[in-house]
């Protein structure tokens, strides 16, 4: 068996301990630890379904080895918000009908949040570029763009965190 190591991951603000071999990806590790909101789409970095925030920036967890994520802040879509306190992007995606089968949605929300943290008032082109690593086969992206723009507008107006 490949050598396994016990590591501590900081996931959604909680310290979680797990024992993983060197080749275990962060995607696999997160799902093993119960974070089923991180979706497995291609395991090659082509589709973005598994995107998480690592130190505030979107990354494909399938291209990140679990060991290398130690000591970094990992945020999944369920860490952004939930039923009691939904994140503005979660609300906007729902309200704009940007969710269909929903399998790409966690990754799209993570990529959108990453963009909005880095870029104030992103242009349409900024949004397209930021989401270009996240494939969606249902929506055609139109309502996704609308949702992101709405949240960006509200943030610029100072109404949101």
């Amino acid at each position: 068996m490949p050598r396994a190591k016990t590591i501590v991951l900081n996931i959604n603000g909680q310290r979680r301990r797990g024992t993983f071999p060197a080749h275990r990806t962060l995607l696999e590790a997160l799902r093993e630890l119960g974070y089923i909101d991180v979706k497995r789409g291609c395991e090659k970095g082509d589709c973005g379904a598994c995107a998480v925030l690592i130190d505030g920036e979107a990354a494909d967890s399938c291209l990140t080895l679990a060991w290398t994520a130690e000591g970094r802040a990992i945020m999944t879509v369920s860490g952004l918000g939930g039923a009691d306190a939904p994140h503005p992007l979660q609300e906007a995606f729902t309200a704009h009908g940007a969710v269909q089968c929903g399998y790409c949605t966690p990754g799209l929300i993570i990529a959108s949040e990453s963009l909005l943290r880095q870029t104030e008032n992103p242009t349409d082109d900024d949004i397209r570029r930021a989401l270009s690593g996240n494939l969606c086969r249902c929506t055609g992206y139109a309502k996704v763009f609308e949702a992101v723009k709405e949240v960006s507008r509200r943030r610029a107006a100072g109404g949101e965190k």
Partner: protein
Amino acid sequence: MSEFEAQAPAKPNVAWKQIGQPLERTDARGKAEGTTRYAGDYTMPNMLHAKVLRSTLASATLRRLDMGKARALPGVACVLTAADLPDRLAPTDIPGQTGQQRQKTDQQILARDRIRYFGEPLALIAAETSDLAEQALALAEVELEPLAGVFDPIEAMKPGAPVVQGENNVVAAQKIRKGDLAKGFAEADLVIENAFRTQFIEHAFLEPEVGLAWIDENRVINIRVSTQVIEHFRYVADALGVPHNRVRIMGAPVGGGFGGKEDVTVEIYLALLTRATGRPVRLEYSREESLVGHGKRHPFIMSYRTGVRKDGRITALEAKFIADAGAYVFLSPYVLLYAAVAAPGPYRVDNLFVDAKAVATNNMYTSAFRGFGAAQACIGYEQQMDEVAKALGMDRLEFRRRNYLRTGDRISTDVPIRSAVWTERCAEQAWAALGEVSKASGPIKIGRGIAAYQQSYGRITWLHDTSEGWVGVEVDGTVIVRSGVTDIGAGQGSALAQIVAEVLGVTLKDVVVYNSDSAVTPLAGTTTATRALYMTGNAIKLAAEAVRERLVARAAKALGVEPDQVEMMSSRVFIAEHPDKSLSFSDLVKLCAAEGIHRSELAMFRAPFTDRIDPETGRGQVHPDYTFGAHAVEVAVDTETGEITVLKSVGAHDVGQAINPAAVEGQIEGGAVQGQGYALSEELIYREGRLMTPSFSEYLIPTAMDVPPVRSIILESRSGLGPFGAKGIGEPALTAVAPAIANAVADAIGVRVSDLPITPEKVVNALRRQRSKDGPTSR
């Protein structure tokens, strides 16, 4: 009243409060917050992990398969090969609840001797971990002896070609003979002939195939799986040789289907492994395995010959289709039937001849894909319509206008169309919505294209489709819906909640839908064929109306009026003319509960049932009804690089009645982008049957960078057979997109690339050929 005629619009509950509103879908929040459990999100204690060993050749004899080393690997619990299985086959014909006799197209579960396609399963492995199962795969000793294969349907029809299926590889044929073709061509002033080709394409749902199976205390094999069809439990049972009631399939929200999860995927493998081990077993495909392992869209070779008078009236049409069925039959006969029926498109053609064949090859088998043959036909007939208009020197829309089918006209199979046919209205509005023409500059040429379509909703009428659904009210005034329907992402469940909320005068949040469990929820049929809203929506509406009738009768007594004076709205029950005289919905339900009044209903909706069509003429009813509409686009083509940019995209569809317009827009926007991929970038490339494009970096679906603004125009004739006069929009949203783009590119550059996808390379080559042809005269 004929059952093909739309029901009278439901009596509005005061005014419709829920139907036609762009409400937040009931399933959206959980998906956005990451709490929704898909089939792959379930695990069980003591669970094994499975892998499938697949063939590395497309045409071969399996000389030796030694799994000894794999079996001996510590941690491997089970290895199954064909030798370990009873001599049973996997059914592949007509998925779902139909009682019709299946055709003899069953497939071997694991290859025994003969291998017919690249990736054909040879063995199943279950191990303690996924890593161990993977290691065991590598220990398999496989000896394959290559056999001559055939990879082109035209080659496969030639005498002496390797035989993949049947006697001569022709696995299905469909004829349509209407009117007098020779007479029609004799009346023509002009005869135009063209050929068009389409490619293998991939559904590219984001969630790869996945499932988990276990055996319960009743010796029932339970399978939780990502599927469009929970009623495959019967096929799984047949494949294993167990009674139908010993297999239970539970769906989960499906991470995209598009027809790719219509056939059985992992279910039989899971059932075999859990039966062999007595332990829960989980199997998920990698993306590459998904791309290799499920059926594709049929490539079509289409020749069209159209006779037309100078006034633009079509006098005759001859269409010949050859579809690549790949290595197994699956749904090819039905795909071919849909294509044949759709061959003339939404146009009146009195003299029609269609010959369609599906031919087996050693390519990947082909089966269901959104549009189901009718989409391929549209790529043929709509490009042909543009070519005929061009030859006539007539405006493209005007030429179409002179030929559109109207209500009462007889379609290809010589039966009248009974619902509204708003093709013209859709086409005109889509075209107008393109607005001002964008500016061409230098090498960038601008072009526009339109395509109209006719696409069925509901299954083939001789399959006699049915759907059952249950509605019940709780004493606190909340509502439960039970329906076997699978939700593949279009909001199938949410639409049911909306219908029930409308009928019972409650809000969407008062309704919970339980769905897709073959043992527990009433069997609703498949989520395929644009039938879910039509069939299941009608069943649930019937059930809700029956409950409403009993509640209203009791309320009338309480309020001292006749039942027809009672209304229900916002969870209140009141006298229509005296809204202040009311009681709460929950008090009414409590009253009914106390008196033993039945507060629930199980209803069945039956689609119209016809005999099979005449095999020689194709005459007869094939589908319950059709959706009509059009798609228009504007493109920019860089004549130096061949690059195509879609600038504007407009879908206009008569959906009968939009239950949730936001969801309808979602279908149109998604269809526009899927169709764009079909036209421009998507192609599964097979070399000697081997897939050369097994990832999303080689198989290119449109990204956020590639899509234009999409405008949706929703028209509502309220003439459909679905609930509240709805038609269907799932498949129709896609059908006309690719031909509209092909027509726009031809409009931009003045030459047609007649085989999809229209890649930059093909554009540049077409321009080069055009220049060398024009050279001597134009320069």
